[in-house]
């Protein structure tokens, strides 16, 4: 099986600082990979490389076996600070990525409505971002990235600024959306718990310079458990990741 995303000995340096050092990683089509690491482990740099917003100093970033040459609509990026256009309504924000494409105005509005509905924001189409809560803004941002139907969704600590209840709600929704759409998702987070809950696999990066320390498979068994986060399998995975990260966090701090 060919990988959807392939990193081959990727190194990225800024002047004297090495952000990423010789990272190799394959992500299968339709996989949900969570990426954890202490601050300064180059997580966001890695995402910029995947998004085509930066170029590796050496090594290769491949999508569908082809090197990434720049940004493109085959990948959608969701940022921590939402990055909504404040002068556009929720609907017009979702339409943003569709405007260069083949859809006419009515079709774009229809598509935007459909994806706002998918993220549970029906009835908020004409609201401006400042009229929405943080969780709602992030839902709009997710709808915007999904609307132009990219194969890959790149998420850079999207829930870090939200309160814990909203966060858990959005995590649940994201898993549901992932299962429904079959997107390949790369999800960066600080939170081990979030990584265990969301990821099929969790990749752990070391602190400066960022190297790939380990990739842990997550198998929580029956996910229908109401309090999944307290289940023994969840606790065991979280502990394993905590051990992997522990030294790194101490080195970074």
């Amino acid at each position, binding site marked *: 099986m060919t990988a959807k995303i392939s990193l081959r000995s990727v190194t990225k340096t800024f002047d004297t600082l090495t952000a990423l050092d010789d990272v190799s990683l394959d992500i299968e089509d339709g996989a949900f990979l969570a990426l954890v690491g202490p601050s300064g482990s180059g997580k966001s740099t890695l995402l910029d490389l995947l*998004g*085509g*917003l930066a170029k590796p100093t050496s090594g290769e970033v491949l999508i569908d076996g082809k090197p990434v040459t*720049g*940004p*493109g*609509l085959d*990948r*959608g*990026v969701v*940022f921590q*600070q939402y*990055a909504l*256009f*404040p*002068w556009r309504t929720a609907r017009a924000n979702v339409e*943003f*990525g569709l*405007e*260069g494409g083949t859809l006419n105005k009515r079709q774009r509005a229809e598509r935007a409505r459909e994806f706002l509905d998918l993220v549970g924001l029906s009835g908020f189409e004409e609201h*401006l*971002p*400042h*009229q929405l*809560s943080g969780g709602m803004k992030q839902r709009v941002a997710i709808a915007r990235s999904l609307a*132009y139907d990219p194969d890959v969704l790149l998420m850079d600590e999207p829930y870090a600024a939200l309160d814990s*209840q*909203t966060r858990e*709600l959005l995590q649940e929704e994201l898993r549901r959306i992932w299962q429904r759409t079959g997107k390949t998702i790369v999800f960066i987070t600080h939170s081990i718990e979030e990584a265990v809950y969301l990821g099929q696999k969790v990749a752990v990066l070391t602190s400066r310079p960022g190297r790939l320390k380990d990739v842990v498979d997550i198998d929580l068994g029956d996910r229908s458990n109401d309090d999944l986060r307290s289940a023994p399998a969840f606790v065991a995975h979280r502990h394993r990741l905590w051990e992997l990260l522990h030294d790194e966090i101490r080195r970074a701090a």
Partner: protein
Amino acid sequence: MTATLEAPTVRTGSEAAAKPQKKKSRLSKTFRGSAAILLFLAGWELAPRYLLDEGTKTFLPPLSEDLVALWELILNGQLADHLLASLGRSAAGFVLAVAVSVPLGLLIAWYRPLAEFLNPLLELARNTAALALLPVFTLLLGIGEVSKIALIVYACVWPVLLNTIAGVNTVDPLLVKAARSLGLSSPSLFRKVILPSAVPTIFTGIRMAAAYSILILIAAEMVGAKAGLGYLINNSQVNFQIQQMYAAIITVSVLGLAINAGFVALERRFSTWRVKEKA
């Protein structure tokens, strides 16, 4: 989530109780807002009548006499003539300045090295009082309309130009990054992200320019004009028509206030998203 569930009940409860109170506080707010002006006007009326000696009273007549003079100016059509002459000049200068400096500002801001190169010069020009250059304009362009309008253009260009540059330069880099991640080309990035997010800042500059266009005009009209509010003020003083002079001054104040209020309302409309985001 619990917070959003609770909020409506709390709000409806207090809103019903708060409504009459709100009306009352709004009334008292209006009163407090205009109390100083009312007091000032009362002082203007009463002080010349009861406190000042005859000599000073001649130069500072009670408000009611000035208002009578204003009424006469309105009735005999003189006020309209002078007002139109002034508005024509300031509008011409203002429109020219905006038409030149918005595109120029966008261009300068887009090429960052150019902005860095020009910035010291722009600061120097902005901080040179426009009226200091009035003699220069008169020497170069004569004493007629051209030099007056040119002076207004000069005064209005700087706030618009500098605000346009600032508006473009302070665009949230995250929005630019988000747009770039969608593969936007530079021209569409400019049109769809940078321009709309700079509009409120640009408009603030336009409002400042509108205020300057009146302020500078009045002074310019005091030299070598045959019509206009500045001329009316100066000419009345020279001819010892003191009440008429104050009537013209009152007109200038009201005109300035009205123009500013109009632009503030327009500005609010253009930038609802920014005003609320800050609050």
